[in-house]
């Protein structure tokens, strides 16, 4: 390929029209955006953005139902704690494809990395909305680093991993922009970047569980465990697998026109391969959760209401999807594997909510229920993520390979 041919006139009119507006005039492009899905997104943003402005103007007290007893709400539980787990598809698939050499999963690598990158960016967004004085976020890196804090480690890991994910996704953007030399340079760094990404993910996925090691007495004994970091790490892998299955099924349908007819992707086969992995990881996770229960010795609590809620989580959202995955792989049913994938994702969300919100402060009279403003804000953050994801997938080589870069690292 000649570099001349690939180099577009970056800021010229034709390139912009071709690559940003799908070859339409701006007016035609704007008209093409009027769709039911966009209308829903617009309503959410119109409600959410003023809510966020209100939150910074009037403070957390006016915008949220947080209290002195319940200092963390859904902005931490969902936007941050769930967000990090649900963005685990990036490191899971990158590790499988690049480190373990499972090339069959290549077609879903870039969507997974993009989901991870946007996921982490939105975690940061959610954190900024939740922090009392977010403009002091950089203090932990250079002014007064709290080196004894679990959060210090998580802060560094998330900050570095966001950059790693940016580098992992950069090839798609560079191919789109036609920046050949930088793209080649990045290709030669792939392995190092991915090893760094997996290491950072191991650290902070587990450390998110370590946040709650200092909360015995506040977190219900069925969820409190010295093994919380291990639970969080292992379940982040299952979350990654579940998310990739669900997200690839959705985007396969939504971005059908983006698929490359010259290189058809057998998504069912990929899904069934992931299902096997999901069955094993979830079963291991189920087993270590049982070990946690045995170590705590609190079998008596299983007979309580909290016990029923706990059993629902570990039987209905860990053991059941594990068995469904195994069954789906055996029966070669990609449909069933997708159901199991969805259950897995919901299970990880349920677990993170239980640890950081529902079973936290279980013995306190003043229970937290999110305010409408908190829900709208979280919804807005997710919507922004989906819109950016769609914008990128419709333009850059994400669900299909760039014809000039087939099979390249």
């Amino acid at each position, binding site marked *: 390929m000649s570099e001349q041919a690939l180099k577009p006139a970056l800021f010229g009119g034709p390139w912009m029209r071709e690559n940003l507006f799908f070859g339409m005039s701006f007016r035609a492009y704007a008209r093409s955006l009027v769709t039911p899905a966009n209308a829903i997104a617009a309503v959410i943003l119109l409600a959410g953005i003023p809510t966020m402005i209100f939150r910074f103007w*009037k403070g957390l007290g006016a915008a949220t139902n947080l209290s002195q007893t319940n200092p963390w709400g859904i902005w931490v539980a969902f936007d941050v704690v769930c967000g990090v787990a649900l963005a685990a598809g990036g490191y899971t698939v990158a590790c499988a494809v690049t480190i373990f050499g499972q090339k069959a999963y290549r077609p879903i690598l870039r969507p997974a990395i993009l989901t991870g990158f946007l996921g982490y960016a939105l975690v940061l967004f959610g954190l900024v909305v939740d922090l009392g*004085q977010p403009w*002091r976020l950089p203090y932990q890196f250079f002014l007064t680093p*709290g080196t004894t804090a679990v959060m210090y480690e998580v802060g560094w890991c998330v900050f570095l991993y966001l950059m790693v994910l940016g580098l992992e996704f950069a090839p798609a953007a560079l191919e789109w922009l036609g920046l050949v030399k930088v793209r080649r340079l990045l290709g030669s760094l792939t392995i190092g970047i991915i090893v760094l990404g997996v*290491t950072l993910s191991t650290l902070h996925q587990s450390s998110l569980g370590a*946040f709650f*090691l200092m909360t015995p007495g*506040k977190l219900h004994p069925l969820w409190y465990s010295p093994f919380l970091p291990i639970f969080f790490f292992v379940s982040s892998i299952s979350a990654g697998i579940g998310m990739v299955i669900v997200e690839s099924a959705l985007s396969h349908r939504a971005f059908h026109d983006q698929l490359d007819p010259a290189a058809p992707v057998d998504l069912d086969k990929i899904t069934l391969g992931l299902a096997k992995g999901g069955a094993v990881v979830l079963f291991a996770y189920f087993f270590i959760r049982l070990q946690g229960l045995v170590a705590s010795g609190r079998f008596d609590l299983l007979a309580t209401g909290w016990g029923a809620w706990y059993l629902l989580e570990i039987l209905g959202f860990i053991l059941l999807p594990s068995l469904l995955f195994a069954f789906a792989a055996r029966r070669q049913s990609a449909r069933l594997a997708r159901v199991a994938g969805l259950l897995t994702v919901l299970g990880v969300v349920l677990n993170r909510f239980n640890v950081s919100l529902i079973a936290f402060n279980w013995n306190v009279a003043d229970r937290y229920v999110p305010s409408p403003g908190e829900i709208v804000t979280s919804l807005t953050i997710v919507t922004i993520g989906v819109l950016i994801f769609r914008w990128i997938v419709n333009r850059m080589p994400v669900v299909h390979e760039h014809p000039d870069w087939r099979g390249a690292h």
Partner: protein
Amino acid sequence: MKLNRRSLLKLAAAAGTAGVAGAAATTRASVLSASKDARGVLVDTTLCVGCRGCEAACSEANALPDPEMPGDDAVFAARRTTSPTVFTVVQKGTLKSAAGDDRYAKTQCMHCVAPACASGCVVKALEKTPEGPVVYHTDRCLGCRYCMIVCPFGVPKYEYASAAPLVKKCTFCAERQKKGLAPACTEVCPSGALKFGRRADLLEEAKTRIYTKPGAYVHKIYGEDEAGGTSWLYISDVPFESLALPAGIEKKSYPELADGALSAVPFVITLWPPLLMGMYTFSKRRDEVAAQEGNGRQEEGHV
């Protein structure tokens, strides 16, 4: 000591490993090591008459609004908690003494020997000073509210109403202590229920009071080992729960609970990359062998 090459190498290797692991360990130690001279307060609840003079002194010393309903015992009807503008409250116990007297206890920050809040603070906004107080740096706090999540006594309070909120709690009058003064509450206490001094001495004092008056006290010092030990110590003749002092607090120091997870970090950092690179090398080799064998078969087919 005879130093040969082998032992020198061993030493170097050990130093290297310790350097990585030690970085975390030494910083932890600086939070945990309380000076022998660290100050504390002994609260003898059998002496407290519930005058709430400590509340008023606290408000004055910290420039806070006056305590609610001054001099009115009706204030004890409901259980009160500290707030961003109230650093200490006197609670009336739910049980009376054997002689039928009301019992009261002042609650405030316990100034743990190894505080969860300070060890978990990502910007060192909360810091344990060797003298005893857990102090708060208003210019550092980014408002993550993790201190509120981990504090077993529910002490840190947040200014939710503010657009640039801060955490508020009892300071143990750290500024007064620096000038050689006693904390305002202990200075004003008329009944001798609050005694300020070296924590180590106060522990002896508390034990002496319990031993020399058998039957006059519950056989326990609250704060001796709650959350690994607190600067504020309580003795009482009624169960501590009846005085709004939370029961069943973990006896281990809280930072210790997260130690295992934190000490795994250097191992993951040093072991994961070579392990992953090794796996990559294996999978690459496997692909190469598979490709070669594939080519070989194809060639045979051509023959």
